[in-house]
C-alpha cells in the first residue's frame, strides 16, 4: 500500500511527504525571517565576533558571507539527513565533524581559486567552525526538521548574517579608509578640503557600535522586537 502511495506522489526524495510546495509561504518565511524579524546578529545577537573581525573591508565580508552560506546550507542538509541516525549523546561531536569538514572544504576551495583573499581570510575561515550561528541552527533547527526546510533555514540565517556583515563593512570601509571593495570612492577634492578618514572606524569597537546602531534602527522601526519590561 505504501508503495502505491509513493508512486502517486511524484516527489524528490528530500521533499516532505505532505507535498508542501517548494516555496510555500512557510518555507519562504524560513528564508526571509532571518533577514528581518529574526536576524541572527541584530535580534539573536549571535556571531558577533566575526562581525568585529572581518568587517574592516567589504571584500572579506562578502567572501565570508558566501562561505558561511555554503557551510550553513550544506551542514544543515547533512545533519538533517543524519538526524535520525545521530545518537543524542554525541550529537555535538557529529555536528562539529560535519561543520569542520565543510569548513576545510571551503578553505581549500578558496586556496585554489582565490589565493589572495585566502591569505587575508584563512584564519577567519577556520573560525567559521566556532561561529555560534552555525551550531545554533544545527541544534535548533536541522536536528528536528526535514532536509529542504533545513536547507532554507541554513541559507536564510547565513544570508541574514551576511547582510549585516556587508552593511557594517560598507560603512567601515567607506568612512575608515575612503574605499569600497578596494576602490577609492571618496574624491581627492574632499581630502584637499580637509576631510580625513576616520581612524576609529578601523578599530573593532566601531563595529560593535555600528551593529548597535543597526539594532537601534531596527527596533525603533519594528516595535514588537522590544522586550516587555
Amino acid at each position, binding site marked *: 500500500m505504501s508503495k502505491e502511495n509513493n508512486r502517486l506522489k511524484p516527489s524528490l526524495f528530500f521533499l516532505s511527504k505532505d507535498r508542501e510546495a517548494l516555496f510555500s509561504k512557510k518555507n519562504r518565511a524560513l528564508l526571509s525571517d532571518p533577514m528581518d524579524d529574526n536576524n541572527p546578529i541584530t535580534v539573536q545577537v549571535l556571531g558577533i565576533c566575526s562581525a568585529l573581525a572581518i568587517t574592516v573591508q567589504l571584500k572579506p565580508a562578502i567572501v565570508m558571507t558566501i562561505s558561511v552560506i555554503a557551510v550553513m546550507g550544506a551542514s544543515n542538509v547533512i545533519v538533517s539527513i543524519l538526524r535520525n541516525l545521530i545518537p543524542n549523546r554525541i550529537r555535538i561531536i557529529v555536528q562539529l565533524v560535519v561543520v569542520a569538514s565543510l569548513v576545510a572544504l571551503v578553505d581549500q576551495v578558496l586556496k585554489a581559486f582565490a589565493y589572495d583573499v585566502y591569505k587575508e581570510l584563512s584564519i577567519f575561515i577556520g573560525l567559521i567552525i566556532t561561529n555560534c550561528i552555525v551550531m545554533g541552527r544545527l541544534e535548533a533547527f536541522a536536528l528536528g526538521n526535514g532536509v529542504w526546510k533545513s536547507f532554507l533555514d541554513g541559507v536564510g540565517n547565513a544570508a541574514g548574517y551576511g547582510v549585516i556583515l556587508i552593511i557594517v563593512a560598507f560603512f567601515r570601509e567607506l568612512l575608515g579608509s575612503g574605499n569600497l571593495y578596494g576602490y577609492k570612492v571618496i574624491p581627492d577634492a574632499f581630502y584637499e578640503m580637509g576631510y580625513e578618514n576616520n581612524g576609529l572606524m578601523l*578599530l573593532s569597537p566601531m563595529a560593535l*557600535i555600528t551593529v*548597535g546602531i543597526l539594532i537601534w534602527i531596527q527596533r525603533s522601526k519594528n516595535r514588537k522586537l522590544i522586550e516587555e519590561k
Partner: protein
Amino acid sequence: MIFLRNLVDRIRKPFEVGQKFEKFAPAVNAFDTLLFVPNHTTKSGAHIRDAVDLKRTMVTVIIALLPALFYGIYNTGFQHYIQLGEKFSFLDAFIHGTWKIVPMIIVSYVVGLTIEFGFAIYRGHEVNEGYLVTGLLIPMIMPVDIPLWMVALSVAFAVFIAKEAFGGTGMNILNPALTARAFAFFAYPTYMSGNKVWVSEASNIDSISGETILGSLAAGNEINYSFSEMFNGSIPGSIAETSTFWIIIGGLILIFTGVGSWRIIIGGLIGASITAILFNFWGINELMSFSWINHLAVGGFAFGIIFMATDPVSAAQTYSGKWIYGILVGVFCILIRVFNPAYPEGVMLAILLMNVFAPTIDHYIVEKNIKKRKKRWQLSNLKNS
C-alpha cells in the same frame, strides 16, 4: 519682568496643547524655563522641592568652568606668540585665543543642542539642561587647532551614542564630553597628539617645540618647564586643562556649592599621589621618575578629576563607592600614563573605564549594606527571643 513674561506667553501661544505647533513645544518650553522657574508641579508621590534644580546645578558648573576657560583662552594666544617668537601684549593673546576658541564653543552648542532638540521633539519630552555643561566641556578638552567639523562630528557622536542611545540626560553610562574626546582621539589621532597640534597655527612651522609635557616624557625627552609653570598652566596642552591653579578655583566652587563630590576629588588625588610616589621609587624611565607632585599638575589630571570624574550621572552614587571610584581613577590615570606611552594622557581613559565600573561598585556597596543590616536584624531577633 511682566513684559518679558507676556512676550514669552505670546510666543508660546501656537505651541500650546491642541494648537498648530504642539509637537515643537519642548523647544519653546526650554527657552521659557531658561528665563523663568517652571510652573508645573509634581503629580504623584512624595517629592522634595528645592530651588536647586537641574538648570541651576548646570549653571553652577558652568560658572566653575569659566576661570579655567578664560585662562585657556589667554594661554592659547600666549603659546601661539611665544612659539612664533613675536612680541605681544596680554590683550593680543586674549584676542587671538578668543578668535580660536569661541567658534569651537559655538559649533559644539549648535550641533549638540540641535540633536538634543531633535530627540526631545521626536520622543515628546522636555529638553534637558545637561548639554549646557557638556557643550562647554567638549571644546575645553580639545587641542586648539582641531578642525571645526571634527568638533562637530565628535559632539554628534557623543550626544547620539553616549547619551541619547541610553535614554538622554541622566541615563548615560559614559561621560559624554570624554566620549567626544575619546572619539576624536581614536578617529583622528594626527589631530589629537603630536607636537604640532597644541599650539595654534603652528603646524607649518618646523622649529616648534609644542609637545605636551607628558608627550615629551613618553618620548624619553627631558622637559624644561618648572613646577610653577606647570601649576599656573603656561604650558602647551588641550585648551582649558593646563592651568591647575584656575581649575582648583573652579573645583572649590563646585565643592562649596555641593555640586561636585569632594570624596571623588580627594580620592583621585590620593590614588594618583600614591601610585606616582611608588613609581618614583621604581623610576626606570622618564615618566616613572617624574615627580609625583608634577604628575598631579600636568596634563588633564586636575581638569579630569574635578570636572569629569565628578559628573553625578556617570560616577558612583554611594559615599564609599565614590571613594573607591575616585581612588581608582587616580591609580589608573598614572598607570596608563606610565605603562602606555601611546596614550600619554591617561586620565581620559581612566575616567571612561571607571564610568563603566561605577554601577558595579555601587552594586557591591549596596549589597554589603543590606547584608550588614540583615545580620544586625537577625542578632536583635536572637536577643529578643
